[in-house]
């Protein structure tokens, strides 16, 4: 299965661990990631807020590239996914708007015909591959890990635009359990991490992350698994910020789901040079060393 890989700004610039391990583990499951040439930002919410047409045109340009490649578009980041998905649906259902957008794109020599399928990483793993195949590929069951998952908001809401509930709140938990790890239910599990307010209103942003970390700790989690790079920063770098502002330590290492999956499929630990992880992963190494 081939997908046009839309990495987005944050992963490509700040979270090489995500990208590295995604590229290493996906081929195990027969997924080929084809890089998209010359993508621009997907136009996430802060940008969408400024100008409607600007958003649609920016997002549609990326969709047009995937369309030229004749491949479905695979997004890792929740915000990218939602922006591109919403755009694809709006332009699919609204030919007038589409022609206005194509008016702008024509200046770039591009056209979006409205036919691209936008998929999320979890959707591909859960529906195209399935929990069973993942279970079968596990060489090192991560039974010592008690994972607090953060699926993020935009992978699952709003329900009405998510096609046939491609990803539901339980999807990430199911996939994590397939690796042998345990998932925990914690207070405020479905609530936003506060990411979108980073840089806009840091106080609230941090409070939201903090209340989730409290819940995670109380529920007995020993690590956090995220899918969205914004959630990752909130929980990872965020723990250092919270330590500074509130004098509270949670010591919860944060992993991208593809990293968890890589560990479970037997990737060597010494490959691990994760500088984008601010909270040390030593405790995770210790727990899985035995198996």
């Amino acid at each position, binding site marked *: 299965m081939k997908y046009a890989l839309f990495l987005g700004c944050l992963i490509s610039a700040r979270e090489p661990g995500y990208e590295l391990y995604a590229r290493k583990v996906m081929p195990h499951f027969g997924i080929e990631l084809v890089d998209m040439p010359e993508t621009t930002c997907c136009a996430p919410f802060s940008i969408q807020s400024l100008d409607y*047409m600007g958003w649609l045109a920016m997002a549609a340009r990326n969709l047009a590239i995937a369309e030229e490649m004749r491949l479905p578009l695979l997004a890792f980041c929740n915000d990218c996914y939602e922006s591109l998905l919403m755009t694809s649906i709006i332009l699919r259902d609204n030919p007038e708007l589409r022609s206005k957008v194509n008016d702008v794109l024509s200046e770039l020599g591009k056209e979006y015909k409205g036919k691209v399928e936008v998929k999320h990483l979890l959707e591909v793993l859960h529906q195209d591959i399935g929990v069973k195949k993942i279970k079968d590929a596990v060489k090192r069951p991560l039974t010592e890990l008690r994972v607090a998952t953060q699926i993020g908001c935009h992978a699952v809401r709003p329900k009405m635009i998510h096609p046939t509930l491609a990803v539901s709140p339980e999807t990430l938990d199911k996939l994590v359990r397939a690796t042998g790890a345990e998932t925990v239910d914690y207070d405020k599990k479905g609530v936003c991490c506060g990411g979108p307010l980073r840089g806009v209103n840091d106080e609230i942003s941090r409070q939201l992350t903090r209340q989730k970390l409290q819940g995670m700790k109380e529920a007995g989690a020993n690590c956090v698994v995220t899918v969205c790079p914004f959630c990752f920063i909130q929980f990872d770098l965020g723990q250092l910020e919270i330590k500074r502002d509130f004098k509270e330590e949670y010591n919860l290492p944060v992993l991208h789901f593809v990293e968890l999956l890589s560990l479970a499929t037997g990737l060597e630990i010494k490959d691990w040079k994760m500088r984008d992880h601010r909270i040390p992963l030593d405790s995770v190494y210790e727990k899985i060393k035995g198996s």
Partner: protein
Amino acid sequence: MKMSEVDPNFMHEVANTPRGEGVLTCIQCGRCTSSCPVARFLTEHNPRRLMEMIILGFRPDVLHGLPWYCLSCFTCLDRCPQRGDVGEVVFAIRSLAAREGDIPEGVVEQAKNLFGTGRLVPTTEFMHRQRKSLGLPEISTSAKDAETIMKRTGFDKIIAKTSTRRSK
């Protein structure tokens, strides 16, 4: 706010802005505020009240500052019985605020990055080196295309307006 400052047409202005149609069917039931994660921390951020203020025409109060607390987490959108949804209307009022140059600093930074580099988070020398050492492909983007789109849709004027407003 003075009665003379009330704009009776504001509700319709918002309804005619993209993503703002929901303001017409709001029944003020309060489910959105009850579900909003930010509302639990901050009394100023009250989605239902925001809709109420739009409907009542309190234009300056609505456009200044208030719309930027929203996380766009869409919890309200999922639960709104009228599918009206303040989560979408927030985008409409932000774009109206943006037209008047009223945007928070952090967002302006992001928009400037986009305009200059085609990316929200610009790349640095360090990142390029790290990617190379990890064997990751080079980042390929088109700052030129991004700039063209933003110019074509009037984005650049919005950013310019904020700069002038700030300097005042």
